[in-house]
């Protein structure tokens, strides 16, 4: 558990989710690539501008593509909403969360940056999501008469 936490929060862990470092004056870290394996790692390195510093244009285009595709999936889900019934709402929320993370982690560099930024932003996200969800639950279910 502790090591999982470390891998998730520390940038020097070496899990497959670990993307290249920002600090460019450090020696190049050994590259495993985003999902492991030398073959993918090679592509990854090209994508990320030689894998030296932060991600490069190729990688950004990829994220942009990802965002567009997820948006299209969202709209498609909306179109077939009648088929999915109430299920399309949680699905949509998950997809928008993916987009959200995509922009925050990569476009806003949070994934490559100092952890303090993540904490600053994450703390307010946690407080915000907590209290506003609580508020919605309260107004949705709060004043039902007791059985």
């Amino acid at each position: 558990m502790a090591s999982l936490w470390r891998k998730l929060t520390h940038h020097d862990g070496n899990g497959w989710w670990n993307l290249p470092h920002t600090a460019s004056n450090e020696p190049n870290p050994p590259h495993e690539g985003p999902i492991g394996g030398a073959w993918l790692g090679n592509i990854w390195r090209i994508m990320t501008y030689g894998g030296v510093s932060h991600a490069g244009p190729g990688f950004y285009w990829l994220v942009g593509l990802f965002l567009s595709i997820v948006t299209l999936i969202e709209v498609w889900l909306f179109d077939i909403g009648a088929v999915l019934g109430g299920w399309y709402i949680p699905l949509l929320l998950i997809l928008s969360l993916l987009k959200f993370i995509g922009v925050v982690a990569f476009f806003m560099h949070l994934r490559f940056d100092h952890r303090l930024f993540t904490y600053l932003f994450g703390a307010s996200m946690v407080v915000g999501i907590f209290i506003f969800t609580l508020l919605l639950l309260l107004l949705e279910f709060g004043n039902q008469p007791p059985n």
Partner: protein
Amino acid sequence: MTTNALTFPRFFPRPQSETGIWGWIGTVDHKRIGTLYGITSFLWFLVAGVEALLIRVQLASAENTFIGPEFYNQLFTMHGTTMVFLVIMPLSAAFFNWLIPLQIGARDVAFPRLNALSYWVFLFGSLIMNAGWITGDAPNGGWFGYAPNSGVTFNPGLGMTYWVVGLNILGVASIAAGLNFIITIINMRAPGMSMFKMPVFTWMTLVTSVLLVLAMPILAVAGIQLQTDRVYGTHFFNSLAGGDPVMWQHIFWLFGHPEVYILILPAMGIVSEVLPTFSRKPLFGYAFVVFAGIVIGFMGWFVWSHHMFTVGLGPAANTAFAMSTMLIAVPTGVKIFNWIGTMWRGNIQLNTAMLFSISFIAMFTIGGLSGVMHASPPTDSQQQDTYFIVAHFHYVLVGGALLGIFSGIYFWWPKFTGWFLNEKLGIANWALMLIGMNLQFGPQHWLGMDGMPRRIYTYAENMGWEGSNLAASIGGFILGFGILLFMINIVYSRMNKKIAPADPWDGRTLEWSTSSPPPVHDFDEIPVVVYRDDFWFKKHPETISEYYHNDHDVEDIAPSATQTAEEHEDDHGGHEGIHLPDKSYYPFILGVGIAIFGIGFLTNTYVIAAGVPIFLWGMLGWSMEPVNDPT
């Protein structure tokens, strides 16, 4: 370096003067801004105090006709709003400004111009908030502005619009100040000062600033919604169109409860500095006090509905919020025990600052306990909207926040000015305030239990409330006389100046290591911190072994600190290298722009358009002005 910076046409030269009105308008010095905050909020304190005394005169006897219901509504609304937003918050801000850079060993805050902007925006916001006194329709909807009573249907005229516009402008100031102090504390500490070597006041400032930054936007949302409802006819709180007035209560208290801690945490920080100094012991359980503060700052978000127990949220919600509210009393209790533990077997020195701090503990405990009483929904439905609640929060805010702040004033006055406040007058001031507040708010407990409702301008003769109310009114005047004595003390001490040395109390934290008052650049040399309470242990090295049992604890810290210090010297190149932030007029100009926006919301949309050029002038000038910020 080849620079190609953009330049911006300048209409007048950059401020240079240190004195006179232009010196103050152009200032970015955290000490002067702290002074501005202090003076302004003290003036508002007098205004709100007079409002309180008028209320007390009216309530001194039954069926009194001294003031009518309309004026009474305005008085209690503005008394509450002023005390919360224009007195306790900015008085705390005055302490933040003065002390944070000094306590962490910095030469200024992280963003000196933003700091000046906060002050100017606060000043203009407070003026707009009070403009109703001049036009004759002061806000009258209570400090919480409950919809729909604050809406335009039930409250036509400009009154509540002043309130909501003023509040939103003050919100800008608070958010800017909060951001500034977060960054300052995170990023401007002296070499060696890790987070857990920071003074507790600095810690409480950090927690308060985080709360400000996260809570004020919610108030801004409530304000914008009420504002558009009032001015542009939207339906946020209009039940005829499907809106829900209860939403106002939710949003307001989502802000309002963290706000309670915004008001009290700075005072807790002050007391945590005063008690160890005059007990001649380090703070008992530093980590507990700090973590209790952080826990309060977090849990404070999950209790807001205890202000709404009688709204009818349902048993499940009431139970949940009752439990979270009772739970949040635990970290508060932890702090109280730590303060008592600090004094335990200490070598206690009873001077004015210490007396204020000790009575803070006592009064705050009373207020806290009556607060836990109405954490229980059945009890609360008995107490809601009665004078019991009034007694509760006055014990917390006067007995807590205000006594804490006065303790801080007496404690740091020699540091701020270079001379002492008179102790005899100080003790009289303390005694009058303490007796006055107890006589004023004590009887309100049983008045409330007896069913006397809040916010009524008078009461019937045969209710049996006259005696207690008269006592409360007398208490109010005693309290007021205490404040008067404080002002007399300032004048008297100023005339018979008793010069203060740099370290008059044998203090513990870094601010006492520099001269009184501090030089413009705060520290001739940026201190290097090895210990918690570093200044104390450097003065009294023989006590180190008492508190640092593990030798390698110290060694761990020491080398890295000296190393950083060397690097530091390289950067600044000693004395001549001290650079201070340059003065600037742009914070003032930007503040004026924001104030004009506010006036525009009150009067005419075209006025907003008139504010745009001034606002843009401020923004562009600000961003293109060459700066010497401590970054």
